[in-house]
């Protein structure tokens, strides 16, 4: 068994975990970051992409609103390249309580969320597809974020400072030395090989899975209730500004334009299993109906893909104070030294993507306390790799670059403008045979055809590099097709069903993927 020795072992490679690794590396600690799957494959990669202005919480949860606006401003600085400055509207539709708008305005003022009421006619000029019956509109500084880009930027930044980043490595057992956690044993999902990681402090940043990881460490009572929500990506940007319903937060009240699509979300339902990704027809219907309220004609647009994310809603079974026993959307930092008398172990869970950096900062402060070291946090000011220029992402950047060399670069994915060079780079850099890893990295196959044309090409490129066998290439292709099907069959209607049928013809008809030698149970008959 390989052994590694480090200062900080981070379990969970979502935004929080990667944020902790980045924060720790900036403070000069040696770090090992592990995730049972790919980075940002869990909750972080399964949200709508919105960096909240704080407006959503201005009435209901003022502290959360304050945190959001503060972090929103910081993220715009440090993760500029991952962020698009779309701005946001809170709109009062005919279905919303008209009295809420004034409470919203007051709440924003009280919490410091920038908010300007504008004439609905002006908002309709900016967003002509918005429901013309909206009565009040407030402009807020919403933004969107490419979470995969952000997480990998932090991971690479940490790696540059010596960190070891191990996706597809699940913690299988903890090292304990009496009342001290001294690291964990992790197992590579692809190799089956185990690595013994000895760490001065272990951070449990596994979000909705934090209770399970804490159990594994022998810590009781960390209860995380997974709150399941569905999101649907529509095939283009029906709006270019994030549109929020001006009402108490509820289902289906946010429409976020991000990259080439826009995403409507979400629902909220407690589920026993954070790996439960069921999508019900009633939920899809509810989302489409909510979309109609914001953008009439929403149902005529193509729904590209549906996914579910699980929010980690924390409930501390050990807390004596009844107020903290409430399930909370706020993040929860558990210093197990104080809570359980177990040193070398910290759990961070709950929270929301917008505040991941703050969560990481607080976590590393707790780690420093446990280690008795004073090393200040610098993530508020240090730009992520790639964001040094402090220029925001703009829609059309990829097209602009492509047009400069129209004939020079072969496009593999036309929908998302992924060139062959980029694809080959990504395959080499990630050393992966999983096209879904590449999808998250490059947005390959995320456009309207959902990989209909690019995935055969990408499979060919993957096979051509690094001596992958045809069998492995077939498996990669079939894995991708199955994963994409999971996200499309519950929302197949209209033109997207047409697209799916064209893809059936390509993959099953022209290419015969069901009958490559590995998958073929073919026996000749007749």
């Amino acid at each position, binding site marked *: 068994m390989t052994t590694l020795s480090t200062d900080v072992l981070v379990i969970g490679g979502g935004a929080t975990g990667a944020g902790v690794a980045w924060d720790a590396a900036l403070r000069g600690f040696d770090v090992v970051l592990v995730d049972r799957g790919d980075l940002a494959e869990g909750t972080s990669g399964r949200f709508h992409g919105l960096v909240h202005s704080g407006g959503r919480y201005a009435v209901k949860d003022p502290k959360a609103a304050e945190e959001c606006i503060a972090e929103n401003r910081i993220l715009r600085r440090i993760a500029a390249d991952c962020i698009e400055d779309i701005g946001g509207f809170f709109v009062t539709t005919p279905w919303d309580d008209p009295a809420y708008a004034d409470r919203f305005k007051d709440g924003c003022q009280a919490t410091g969320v920038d908010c300007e009421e504008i004439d609905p006619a002006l908002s309709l000029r900016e967003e002509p597809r918005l429901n013309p019956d909206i009565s009040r509109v407030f402009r807020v500084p919403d933004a969107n974020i490419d979470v995969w880009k952000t997480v990998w930027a932090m991971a690479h930044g940490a790696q540059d400072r010596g960190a070891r980043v191990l996706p597809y490595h699940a913690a299988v057992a903890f090292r304990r030395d009496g009342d001290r956690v001294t690291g964990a044993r992790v197992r590579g999902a692809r190799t089956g090989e185990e690595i013994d990681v000895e760490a001065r402090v272990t951070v449990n940043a596994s979000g909705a899975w934090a209770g399970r990881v804490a159990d594994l460490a022998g810590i009781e009572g960390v209860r995380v209730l997974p709150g399941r929500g569905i999101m649907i990506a529509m095939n283009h940007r029906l709006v270019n500004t994030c549109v929020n319903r001006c009402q108490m937060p509820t289902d289906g009240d946010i429409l976020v334009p991000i990259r080439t699509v826009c995403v409507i979300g979400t629902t909220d339902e407690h589920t026993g299993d954070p790996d439960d990704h069921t999508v019900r027809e009633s939920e899809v219907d509810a989302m*489409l109906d909510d979309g109609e309220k914001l953008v009439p004609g929403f*149902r*005529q647009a193509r*729904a590209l893909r549906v996914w579910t994310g699980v929010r980690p809603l924390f409930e501390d079974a050990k807390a004596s104070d009844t107020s903290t026993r409430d399930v909370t959307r706020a993040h929860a930092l558990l210093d197990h030294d104080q809570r359980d008398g177990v040193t070398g172990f910290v759990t961070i869970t709950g929270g929301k993507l917008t505040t991941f950096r703050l969560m990481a900062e607080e976590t590393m402060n707790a780690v420093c306390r446990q280690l008795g070291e004073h090393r200040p946090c610098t993530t508020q000011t240090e730009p992520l790799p790639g964001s040094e220029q402090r220029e925001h992402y703009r829609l059309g950047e990829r097209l602009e670059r492509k047009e400069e060399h*129209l*004939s*020079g*670069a*072969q*496009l*593999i994915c036309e929908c998302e403008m992924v060139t*062959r060079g980029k694809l080959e780079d990504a395959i080499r850099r990630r050393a992966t045979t999983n096209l879904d890893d590449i999808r998250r990295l490059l947005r390959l196959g995320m456009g309207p055809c959902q990989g209909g044309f690019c995935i*055969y*090409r990408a*499979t*060919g*490129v993957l*096979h*051509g590099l690094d001596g992958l066998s*045809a*069998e492995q*290439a*077939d498996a990669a*292709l*079939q894995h991708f*097709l*199955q994963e994409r*099907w*999971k996200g499309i*069959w*519950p929302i*197949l*209607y*209209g*033109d997207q*069903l*047409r697209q799916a*049928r*064209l893809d*059936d*013809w*390509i993959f*099953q*008809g*022209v*290419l*015969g*993927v*069901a*009958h*490559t*030698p*590995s*998958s*073929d149970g*073919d*026996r*000749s*008959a*007749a």
Partner: protein
Amino acid sequence: MLHYDAVVIGAGTAGLVAGARLAEGGARVCVVAKGVGSTHLAPGTIDVLGYAPDRVASPAAALPEFMTARADHPYALLGPDAVAESLGWLKARVEAGPLPGYRYAGELDRNLLLPSAIGALRPSALVPETMAGGDAALPGRVAVVGSRSLRDFHASLCAGNLRRAGIEARGLEIDIDVERADENALGLARRFDDAGWRAAFAARLAIKLQADERVGLPAMLGARDPHGAWSDLEQRLGRRVFEIPTLPPSVPGMRLFEILRSALRRAGGRLVIGAEVVDVERSGQAIAAVSTRAGGHDVRYAAPWFVLAAGGFASGAIELDSHWVTHERVLGLPLRGLPAPGEPRFVAEYLAEQPMARVGVAVDGELRAEGAENVMVVGAALPGAVPWSEASGEGIALASGSRAAELVLARAGGTPAGAAA
């Protein structure tokens, strides 16, 4: 208002076959279509029955039992003779067609097994002669030749899977200079029409080949004169050369379209593409006329007979809307094969059979649409088949297009009815 003996809606294989055969039978025919159909997407092979669900070695032998076992399948309505007859008709039209020397090879007795672009072996009954050399039953090693310039074909992956299937194969790449880095097979096919360019290509390829290797190339050996391009390459390389179908646009499919269009026109039929049916005039249980819209201009077509060849979900002729209601959008005809309310429309495993897969326009035993006594339904609009997984799409299109023409001609008393313009 334009008057015809029959109006065919849809210009895929089924519609063009129905139109050509009606015209050949003496009917005044117009084929109207929103766009070109399946031909430009499909490999250009005539797949009759490839999987039932095990791989079918001989469609001729398998069809009778298949028809008995699947009474709801289009083949059960058509019968084995219609399939054989229509294949013969197609072969003859290819020979008489606009592409000099171009032929289709193969018989209903035996499926050829041809490599796909990923190296899976696809069973097809009738294939362009330019593809027949890829048959797995033929002896000899295979050199699969690709080019980095063509992103839609990956030779070493194809060869790798052929090896796994027991065929000695290797992949090799040859440089092709392209003007655009995202050139597709059609762009390259135009170069293969050029004899000088072809000679230079053959010379560069010849030195890379080993004795007793046959050569598989992506399906791009000529758009205007594929027979000339292919036989010239065979001659220059001194060995079998064959095409391997790849991603759309399909060059061999476009050739098939040209052949069928030419058959239609030569028989006096008319083809109007870019004309979507936007309105239907009913007269009791019959369709009296349809209106099409092209360039903001509406044209009405009246006829005693209509052939619906507009396809299924892939073409948009059948639609599942966002309220989960399924419609036939062209003529508003009733459908068959829908999952019962509350039953799943799709299942989570991609390659499993999807409950929605067999939906089509409800017809009687003679292809007549329920609720419209003068409408014949052909091709992918028919219910009961899963053509992409059965490898049966073109067989159904050919046989149903032919049969519909025959039935219309017979009912019109052998002579065109309503011939007044």
